[in-house]
């Protein structure tokens, strides 16, 4: 939004004033529009009750106004969009992951303690033994508003006896006051019956119960039937315990769940989310399985990323050099063909390769007659993964190298030729160093991508083949697939633990990329 410079021009050049004025209005309109948009989003967020998000949105609107409405900070105008995306898409996920890694968030620990306790109690509601199932009609007193008036249950019990139940209790209903059609009350004097749609609007219906003598209540089961149910569990806030009235078991909170105080029996099913400090991290560093698996996987992970980058780069570069030769005819066709594997979605190629590597039915063994158990033995599986990744990755390197080669100054090559350098010498001493300056950072990026190449591993081997006794550590596992299985797919999903592993991977990748970027900078200085 280059608003101010054009406004300045408007005074200097009367001939261009009209256009500048138009641009100026366009700028202001865009500014107003973005503020209106943020306002709209804020209203929605407020509607949903996200208070913190509303404050952030309001702050954002202020920043936008202050920046683009004045000329106080011109450079920031260009930086703000990127800055916001950086905060939203990079910084926030990292903060969120770190925050999650300090909790026990995961299966069975999704909700707050209050919600979990309420759910445990709701799950303990049983039909009172020997009590009847009623045919239900939901009603309110005639003449009162159906959306807010106190609810009443018009019930037909066993043997056709009629009742009316409200928050005070259950009372008989005279048969003369009600019309019963096919077992249900369809009209009653003094009451307005609700239809399903109206009843659904009454969100108090699912918690409503007609109190009964035994301490239970008659509850609706849907819209047509009601039953007398009683919760077996009750929560005592004073002692922070839950008691089962049918067995007398007292449950205390331990490890974010309700467990029996005497240690006998099982915990209640629903647990809650709580902060566990650095426990997830200490778990990772003290668990034998994780520790022993970690090193092997880490080594393979580095080898996989390094070999993938090297093999794809070498093949891509050689092909690029070959097709850079002007004497080859039909270079355009070859180039298009070589880019094809890149155009096919990677997951399709991976699945095709997967079926080609099948020991019995795959085309590779059928053609070569090797009979290698490609995906069943550790080293063959690693080779299969690398071959597939070479296929998937070389076109990228080919494109990059082709571009870089075409950008090389021809005078340098000419000088080399005049100095008597052969083709290989030119490549080694002139072309390669110049090429590396251009593609060096891309190699580092490619390394980082392959370091976390979850998709390929997951589609090809899912980390396997696994080495029993431990089906947690796969021969082709990367840290990221290992973390995925460990924390999400293997046993009970544990997002806290998964986040902790992610944080560790983040640190590792960061530490490893740092020297790479340093080195690529060093190359830049050489040139």
């Amino acid at each position, binding site marked *: 939004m280059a608003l101010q410079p054009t406004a300045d021009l408007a005074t200097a050049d009367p001939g261009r004033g009209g256009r500048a004025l138009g641009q100026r209005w366009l700028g202001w309109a865009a500014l107003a529009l973005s503020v209106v948009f943020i306002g*709209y*989003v804020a209203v*929605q*967020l407020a*509607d*949903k009750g996200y208070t913190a998000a509303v404050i952030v949105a309001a702050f954002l609107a202020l920043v936008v106004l202050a920046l683009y409405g004045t000329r106080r900070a011109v450079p920031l105008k260009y930086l703000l969009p990127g800055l916001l995306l950086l905060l939203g*898409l990079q910084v926030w*996920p*990292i903060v969120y992951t770190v925050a*999650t890694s300090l909790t026990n968030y995961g299966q*069975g620990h*999704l*909700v707050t303690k209050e919600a*979990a306790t309420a*759910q445990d109690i*709701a799950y303990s509601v*049983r*039909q009172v033994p020997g009590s009847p*199932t009623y045919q239900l009609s939901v009603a309110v007193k005639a003449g009162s508003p159906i959306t807010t008036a106190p609810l009443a249950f018009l019930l037909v019990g066993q043997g056709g006896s009629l009742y009316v139940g409200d928050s005070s209790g259950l009372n008989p209903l005279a048969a003369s006051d009600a019309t019963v059609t096919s077992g249900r009350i369809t009209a009653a004097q003094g009451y307005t019956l609700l*239809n*399903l*749609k109206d*009843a659904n609007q009454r969100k108090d219906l699912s918690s409503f119960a007609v109190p009964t003598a035994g301490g239970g209540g008659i509850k609706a*089961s*849907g*819209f*047509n*039937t009601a*039953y007398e149910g009683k919760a077996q569990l009750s929560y005592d806030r004073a002692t922070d315990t839950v008691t089962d009235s049918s067995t007398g078991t007292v449950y205390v909170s331990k490890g974010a769940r309700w467990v029996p105080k005497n240690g006998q029996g099982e915990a209640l*099913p*629903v647990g809650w989310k709580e902060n566990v400090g650095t426990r997830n991290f200490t778990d990772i560093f003290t668990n034998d399985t994780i520790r022993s698996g970690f090193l092997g996987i880490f080594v393979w992970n580095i080898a996989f990323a390094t070999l993938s980058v090297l093999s794809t780069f070498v093949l891509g570069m050689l092909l690029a050099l070959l097709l850079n030769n002007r004497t080859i005819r039909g270079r355009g066709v070859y180039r298009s063909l070589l880019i094809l594997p890149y155009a096919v979605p*990677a997951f399709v190629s991976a699945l095709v390769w997967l079926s080609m590597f*099948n*020991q*019995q*039915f795959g085309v590779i063994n059928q053609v070569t007659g090797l009979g290698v158990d490609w995906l*069943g033995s550790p080293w063959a599986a690693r080779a299969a993964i690398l071959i597939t990744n070479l296929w998937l990755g070389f076109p990228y390197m080919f494109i990059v190298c082709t571009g870089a080669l075409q950008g090389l100054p021809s005078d340098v090559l000419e000088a080399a030729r005049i100095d008597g350098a052969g083709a290989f010498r030119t490549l080694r001493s002139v072309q390669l160093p110049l090429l590396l300056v251009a593609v060096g950072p891309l190699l580092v990026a490619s390394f980082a*991508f392959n370091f*976390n*190449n*979850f*998709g390929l591993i997951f589609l090809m081997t899912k980390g*396997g*083949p*696994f080495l*029993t*006794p*431990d*089906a*947690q550590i796969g021969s082709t596992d990367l840290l*990221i697939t290992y*973390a*995925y299985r460990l924390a999400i797919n*293997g*046993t*009970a999903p544990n997002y806290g633990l*998964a*986040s902790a592993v*992610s944080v560790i*991977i983040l640190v590792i990748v960061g530490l490893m990329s740092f020297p790479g970027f340093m080195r690529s900078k060093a190359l830049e200085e050489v040139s």
Partner: protein
Amino acid sequence: MHKRAYGTAAVLTSAALLVSACSSTSSGSSGGGTTSPSSTSSATASPSAVSSSAPARDANADLVIWADATAAPFVQALAAQFAQQNGVSVAVQIANDVRGQYETAFKAGQAPDIIVGAHDWLGELVANGAVAPVQLSSDVAAGFNPLAIKATQYNGQTYAVPYGVENLALVRNTALAPTAPATMEQLIATGKALVKAKKATNIMADQMGKTGDAYHGYPFLSACGGGIFGTKSNGDYDPANVIVGGAGSVKGAAAMGTYAKEGALSTNIDSTNADSLFQSGKVAFEITGPWSIPAFQKAGIKYAIDPLPSIAGCGKMQPFVGVQMFYVSSAAKNMTVAQTFVTSFITSEAAQESLFQIGQRPPALTAAYDKVVTSNPDVAAWATAAKGGQLMPNIPAMNSVWGPLGQAMADVISGKPAAATFKSADAAIVKNIKSAG
């Protein structure tokens, strides 16, 4: 204003959700790896709405149901009837991964009212507090297959309404193998003759893959008295009693090893090629379930469904029995309509009959079963094959079993000793259950 507005907010929240979901799995990934449900839905809330996009909860409907792509059209037809009878609007939305997407939506407070899925999700749903109890009166419950009712229960509470029962059986190509084998040994003899005559490439297809498949391998364990969990006194599975390393399971595993040497079991047969081998007539026998049948019919293969054969020195192979059902979400925004739909509508004979069309699974309601069995001989065959089968465990501890047990099976098939492999798998499972808490 209010209703229109939800769309934008939903997109924003789901975007935020995606960010958080991605971050929790792979903060360092530079794209390309994770597959997460994209949330772009614009389903209208008319009674006949099927939204095929990845679901974002339809806020306008009086009832929102999530089902997978196979089930959705039939659920939709029923839902339309229900909507018309009761003057409400129902939206049926397709979720590619109902279980995973439901959990994500539940965490974000955007859960649908009802989900359609398998009974072994139950323990996990209960632990997350994500499912609401359902009250089936005793006379309604008495009309169902007792095994199906048992599948809806967890810790003595009922949580769902079942509609279909599914299990593995031996599907046979009648052109290649005219008679049903009573034992694995007969099956292998027939299969070997076919392979020798170049009529088949393999003796049998049982999807196993390089990392194994505990579901498709379980019948070999059950035949010899083995299994996964022991049972408590009330008949529930006991996660503290893992019997993978027990004598029965080891005996079954040894049988798997023997059959693998004969060529009847192979880790080269996996979920991608098992059905297509049978479909193309390259294998005479496949151990599979009702879900494979539509493809076989399409391919014009003449097939028969037989009970699983027995193993020499052990007994008859028993499959796991799975039950498909309707769950009501504990976070249902339309609890009354949802409960009414599952308890009064889905329990009806007509509804159960039309739900039979989903994958041709034998109905859970006895009256509906009796009706479809007269018109479809496959139904009786599946039910016969299920006889004696145990319910697939619905306890969350089952999540700790699939990986180690599957790999142990694959290893035994690849020639490793049965006893040692299964004993160490047992230890790994016990350890996993412990660490899962």
